[in-house]
């Protein structure tokens, strides 16, 4: 139901798709490491069946000042998880006396997503910067595994851009190159995935915190549209 291809549901008055489907961040999300930080990006569509419940969603959720997560899957599940991780990290930061590691946040995500794997539909990309290891991206897909990657893509829209990212990613990109890479990838995913759309929300996380940007729907890069 959430972000998978399924047969078309008939919408009759008693059981329309938007009455019986849960809120899903159908989604295209992405994060890329660079020397000095990470660039995170997401689309802005929340769908209930084929209805766009929110066309300007913010799927880039703050965990700490330097750690953010990109949420895909069930909107309710990912919000609940993010709130819990936020709580744990806030507490941890007070105990520690300094900013927590990105790995720690990813680890808390993993614990929740793994132990409750049968009850959750949550695909999360946890990314940020810390003083010890610099920019890091951790991909935590559906079953609750956690793996660090130089870049990660997720959500239903990601299936359309695996070829693009595999052929266009280069090690050692700088911040601006990463931003362009994320923008192009998300624009391509959004133009093919019905569950993704709207605007692209970007976040650039460095030692100085996060710089947020929004690229509106009519300003996105355009590709072949035949």
């Amino acid at each position, binding site marked *: 139901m959430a972000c998978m291809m399924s047969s078309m549901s008939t*919408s009759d008055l008693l059981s329309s798709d938007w009455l019986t489907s849960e809120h899903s961040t159908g989604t295209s999300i992405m994060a890329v490491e660079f020397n000095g930080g990470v660039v995170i990006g997401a689309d802005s569509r929340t769908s209930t069946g084929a209805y766009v419940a929110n066309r300007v969603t913010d799927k880039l*959720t703050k965990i700490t000042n330097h750690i953010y997560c990109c949420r895909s899957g069930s909107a309710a599940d990912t919000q609940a998880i993010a709130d819990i991780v936020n709580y744990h990290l806030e507490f941890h930061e007070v105990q520690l006396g300094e900013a927590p590691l990105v790995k720690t946040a990813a680890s808390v995500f993993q614990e929740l997503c793994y132990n409750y794997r049968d009850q959750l539909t949550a695909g999360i990309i946890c990314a940020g910067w810390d003083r010890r290891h610099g920019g890091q991206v951790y991909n935590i897909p559906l079953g609750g595994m956690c793996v660090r990657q130089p870049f990660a893509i997720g959500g239903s829209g990601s299936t359309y851009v695996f070829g693009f990212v595999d052929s266009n990613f280069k090690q050692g990109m700088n911040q601006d190159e990463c931003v362009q890479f994320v923008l192009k990838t998300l624009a391509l995913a959004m133009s093919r995935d019905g569950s993704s759309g709207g605007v692209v929300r970007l976040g650039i996380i460095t030692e100085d915190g996060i710089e947020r940007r929004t690229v509106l*729907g009519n300003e996105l890069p355009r590709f072949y549209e035949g």
Partner: protein
Amino acid sequence: MYANPNSIINPSLWPNGPAPGCFFNFPGTSVTSTSSKSGIITRTQSPVTTGTSILGLVFDGGVMLAGDMLGSYGSMAKFRSIERIIKVNNSTVLGATGDIADFQHLKAIIEQKVIDEDCADDGFTLKPKALHTWLTRVLYNRRSKFDPLWNTFLVAGIEDGEPYLGCVDKIGTAFSDSKIATGYGAHIALPLMREGLEKKPQMTKEEARALLINCLRVLFYRDCRALNKHQIATITKEGVTIENNIELDTNWEVANFVIGYE
């Protein structure tokens, strides 16, 4: 008495007569393939490549149809140049929602009808209401065989000098009205069209176009299966014009006011 519903021959009713729960094949008609075990035919499909809403609006002197150019493959925006609105003849236009394969099947049959009519050369051309009625018969019959054409059609045109707009769905429900929308359009666009027509029942062509364009824009915002690339067809006494590849301006400024989710 009725030994088992699987038996095709039931002497207590009439020779070779119908068994309960099964189709009775009237003599002289061709039979669609059945499983010999149960005799009950069900071939109700699920649609594969589909088109979303079509909007239709009657204005002063004509009628307008609008729809996007997307063929969705489930949630994938697979085919982005599908023409779902076609000209049938100089006084009729047809728009289709639903399975594109079924639409193309009917499109070929209708195009052949037009050719045959042209060959007959008797001065008669297919009128919109006639096409509508024919479509209704076809769709209802298919539904009655549990093998529907998974579409909703909008027929628009000029019938005896007056604008005509009619709708038929996959189960053969047919009606005509001054404003019709299919799919998500029925929920989102139709209220906007009703409001517009209540304020001004005899709209000009430009006003109708502006109203439809606004509806298309809202549908692009709110329908996951919509594309920002449209067709608009206008039918008046002068004839039929279909504009393709129309892209609408969109406003995303509200996104700047949203951070987080509480």
